[in-house]
């Protein structure tokens, strides 16, 4: 796990804590306890191996080591580690699903704006061989 905290601090929900409600703000968070409701953060979210989240999650980089039930949007990167269990749909710019993990749901890749520059691929010119095929 990289410790690059982007200015914001890191919050921690410990193992024996249950939060029912909405979490929002500009924080990185490590969840080892339970969260039921919704999480919408401008920061990185790690669901630790003891963490259980029943919520829709919206964050930058999301790492799942515990259990998640809900839809997840990772604006940069989503990782489901081998101990992770993910039930719900995911949207991410890049995904990494490790061997041994559980994922039930649909996956949708968020396209980067740079995809527009990738689109004009060199088109091969088939007319000459096609013309020869017609002549035969």
């Amino acid at each position, binding site marked *: 796990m990289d410790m690059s905290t982007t200015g914001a601090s890191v919050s921690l929900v*410990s193992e*024996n804590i249950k*939060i029912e409600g*909405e*979490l929002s703000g*500009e*924080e990185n*968070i490590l969840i080892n306890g339970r969260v039921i409701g919704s999480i919408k*953060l401008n920061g990185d979210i790690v669901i630790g*191996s003891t963490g259980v989240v029943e919520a829709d999650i919206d964050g930058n980089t999301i790492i799942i080591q515990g259990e998640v039930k809900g839809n997840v949007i990772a604006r940069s990167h989503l990782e489901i580690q081998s101990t992770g269990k993910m039930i719900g749909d995911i949207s991410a710019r890049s995904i990494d699903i490790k061997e041994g993990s559980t994922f039930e749901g649909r996956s949708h890749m968020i396209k980067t704006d740079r995809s527009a520059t990738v689109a004009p691929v060199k088109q091969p010119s088939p007319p000459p061989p096609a013309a020869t095929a017609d002549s035969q």
Partner: protein
Amino acid sequence: MGWFKKSSPREESTTTATATTTPPPTTPHETPVSKGATYLGKNLNINGSITGRDDIQIFGRHTGNMQLEGDIDIKESATIQGNLKARTIQVGGNAEGDLIASSKLHIKRTGKVTGNITSPVLALKEGAVFNGEVNMRSR
């Protein structure tokens, strides 16, 4: 410009000290510092209820009730709206709602409480703001 000669023996002393004091980790996944303590940072807003057995330190905003078997520490930057129930409650920030502590309640110099408080032991520092009723029930 000095040659900090003292630094080298000091380093030696610290290394020997740490070498002697480092206990073998019994449970590798549980670090004693983070165990049982929730930390809710300055830029985190929570709208809902919090329950559990651990301690909580709050630096951000929370709207909703909290019921814990551990301690609640409301830091100076924190704003809480809701009823709180815990073993000990420390208020250094803003709290609006009824506070019930089963062992001790402490309103710090920077603390501001609006609501009724119940605790067997009470500490109110000079500078604290408190509007409400006090109920000191015996243990």
